[in-house]
């Protein structure tokens, strides 16, 4: 790598030739404030927070897009630089809805932090505020442009990371607003509800639709039997909201916390993840052996499902008909569990804790009423659960370890790894291999489908049959695989697609990290590593060995792909318009 030498604040710094001044400064331990910059996603030099003085340049330069050059002399902290940043920030604040204490991002807001760091104590620019839009028609995502600072991090994420592209800057100058076409609601355009825009937003302009009040109400109702399921990815992220390390494992704190909130039963979505493997593994074998539609594509991720319905309707027949683990769980709670316990399903209130905003949409789909009721009543994101716990004065760190309730809280390591990209594929391979070969796997770790690469491919030998698998996470990566399938270029048998980068550990409902933290460490990788640690420490690590799932088939469902499974655990899809 060709290196250049430059001086930053009098310090000699070596940096790769194609790097930016911002990167070089960071390596030298010099902090330059940023706002619109989101490493690898949005590097456009728009907000002018990162300006620096460069010797010989006529005006201040934006360091996030300024390439280093030999002999360059940079000053990051001069009176002119500081004043420029202050003016910029004050102008941003002058058109900002300053209701900070009641904002969902209070104390986790990059604008707020910058105002503190730059010592802003008054705003010198009173004046009119731009016209704001408040859009809460989507079941998943709320837009409040009164807080938007037009950084475009959400736009880049939506267009480039997810290749969805339903929000853009509309109009110009002071009238500019980040919005869907014709200022419609997100609900009226082909948004897939993934919530990656929320994770990218430095302020409170994008947030999840808050459903905590519905759960508070249910918990306070003595007539309701309120149950909760928790997704695999929650156990490696909720701790972060309570000051824990990135990817800290809180599996056993979860039941304790949820019981203290007042839930009657605390169950685990990992259980129905195992069940999903039984159904989906059987479906894969059925298609493989009986000439069914291949490749089979996983269907756990509701953002991905809606993406497929809008953008790749010609591949709908390739989707597994299996519902997601959340919805399988929901259908069983108000049928199997209700029968088993003798509780009137009308009195069961079913809540799920998900790393996902698209799940809020999924639970309202008309196909998700198989029990005769809405199978899952309310979906809360990791962030909403954390707010409820804080409101109730429950500190996760101070809780004792507890276990999930039986029987729907029993799970295996295969269920747990659903939370990371490649996990569903690996869990399925563990089971499919053993069912087909009737032999025990020597090594159950399919490491070739793990990791942060956007697209992963592998060929697995199952008793002489070569099975080509592919895994993609993040929808722009998914497109690469899907286009190959469409053109006939690829010969896959089984594909896993997760809507969010990293899989569910990187879901749009997960704790939000600042741009600085995201640059520091790959949070998805940290959480995924934790998920694999959870798996390693489980006694049972294959879905077909889950005793509660075996009992469920014996007592109630019969066999995978049987009549009852078909009614409760499988679904169908709808082609949706693109425009």
């Amino acid at each position: 790598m060709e290196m250049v030498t430059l001086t930053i604040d009098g310090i000699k710094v070596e940096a790769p030739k194609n790097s930016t001044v911002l990167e070089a400064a960071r390596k030298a331990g010099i902090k330059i404030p940023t706002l619109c910059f989101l490493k690898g996603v949005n590097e456009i030099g728009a907000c002018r927070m990162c300006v620096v003085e460069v010797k010989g340049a006529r005006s201040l330069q934006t360091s996030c897009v300024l390439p280093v050059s030999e002999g360059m002399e940079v000053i990051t902290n001069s009176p002119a630089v500081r004043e420029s940043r202050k003016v910029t920030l004050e102008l941003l604040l002058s058109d900002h809805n300053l209701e900070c204490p009641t904002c969902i991002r209070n104390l986790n807001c990059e604008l707020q932090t910058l105002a503190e760091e730059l010592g802003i104590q008054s705003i010198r620019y009173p004046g009119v505020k731009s016209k704001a839009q408040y859009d809460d028609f989507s079941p998943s995502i709320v837009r409040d442009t009164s807080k938007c600072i037009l950084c475009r991090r959400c736009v880049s994420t939506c267009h480039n990371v997810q290749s969805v592209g339903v929000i853009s800057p509309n109009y110009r100058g002071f009238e500019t607003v980040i919005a869907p076409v014709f200022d419609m609601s997100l609900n009226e355009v082909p948004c897939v509800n993934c919530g990656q825009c929320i994770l990218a937003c430095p302020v409170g302009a994008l947030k999840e639709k808050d459903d905590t009040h519905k759960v508070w109400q249910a918990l306070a109702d003595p007539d309701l039997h309120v149950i909760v399921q928790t997704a695999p990815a929650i156990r490696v992220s909720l701790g972060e909201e309570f000051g824990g390390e990135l990817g800290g494992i809180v599996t056993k704190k979860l039941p304790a916390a949820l019981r203290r909130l007042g839930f009657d039963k605390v169950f685990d979505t990992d259980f129905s993840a195992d069940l999903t493997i039984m159904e989906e593994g059987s479906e894969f074998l059925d298609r493989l052996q009986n000439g069914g539609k291949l490749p089979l594509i996983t269907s756990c991720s509701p953002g991905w499902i809606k993406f497929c319905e809008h953008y790749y309707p010609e591949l709908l027949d390739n989707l597994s008909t299996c519902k997601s683990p959340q919805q399988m769980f929901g259908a069983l709670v108000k049928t199997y569990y209700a029968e088993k316990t003798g509780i009137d399903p009308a009195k069961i209130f079913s809540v799920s804790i998900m790393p996902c905003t698209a799940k809020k949409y999924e639970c309202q789909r008309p196909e998700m009423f198989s029990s005769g009721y809405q199978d899952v009543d309310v979906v809360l994101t990791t962030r909403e659960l954390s707010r409820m716990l804080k409101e109730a004065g429950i500190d996760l760190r101070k809780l004792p370890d507890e276990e999930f309730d039986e029987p729907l809280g029993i799970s295996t390591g295969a269920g747990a790894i659903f939370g990371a990209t490649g996990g569903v594929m690996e869990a399925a391979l563990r089971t499919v291999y053993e069912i087909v070969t009737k032999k025990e796997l020597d090594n159950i770790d399919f490491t070739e489908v793990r990791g942060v690469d956007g697209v992963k491919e592998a060929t697995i030998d199952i008793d002489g049959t070569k099975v080509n698998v592919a895994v993609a996470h993040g929808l722009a990566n998914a497109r690469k695989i899907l286009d190959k399938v469409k053109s006939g270029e690829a010969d896959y048998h089984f594909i896993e697609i997760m809507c969010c980068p990293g899989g569910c550990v990187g879901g749009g409902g997960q704790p939000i990290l600042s741009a600085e933290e995201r640059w520091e460490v790959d949070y998805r990788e940290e959480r995924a590593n934790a998920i694999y640690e959870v798996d390693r420490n489980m006694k049972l690590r294959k879905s077909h060995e889950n005793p509660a799932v075996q009992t469920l088939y014996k007592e109630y469902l019969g066999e995978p792909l049987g009549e009852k499974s078909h009614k409760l655990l499988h679904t169908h899809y709808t082609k949706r318009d693109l425009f």
Partner: protein
Amino acid sequence: MAVALNQQQDFIEKLNKIEDMLKKYQGKRSALIQALQEAQAIMGYLPIEVQKLVAENLGVTLSEVYSTITFYSFFNLKPIGKYHIRVCLGTACYVRGAEKVLDRLKTELGIEVGDTTDDLKFTLDGCRCIGACGLAPAIIVNDEVYGRLTPDKIPEILKKFE
């Protein structure tokens, strides 16, 4: 009824024409502004139906198309009337009462700035300095300048276009 049918026919014919025009831009994202200009030359404005055609053919999102149209002031989202009235709101006109002239135009035409009358006769817009400061306050109707206006002169001017 017959008029409405004719209008619909005309609209569809123009859409077909635009679709033909777009053939040369298949998959060419970088041709967005060019394609929009040509489409507007055919239709007169850029309704959502046209935007969808452009998005589909060029392989860009509808969101990008709308974003581009609303950024550039020479693209129109709504039909433009036969007579396009632009009221100069530049400094000289403004201090000599352009706002009152504009208000009178709004009342006489019964529309807001940026709108077009239902009979598609008049479109009312504000604009920056038109270089006729000596005649302030001034307006332009299509290409003709009317200067030294007072609100009371407006009805008389509008009469010319009936």
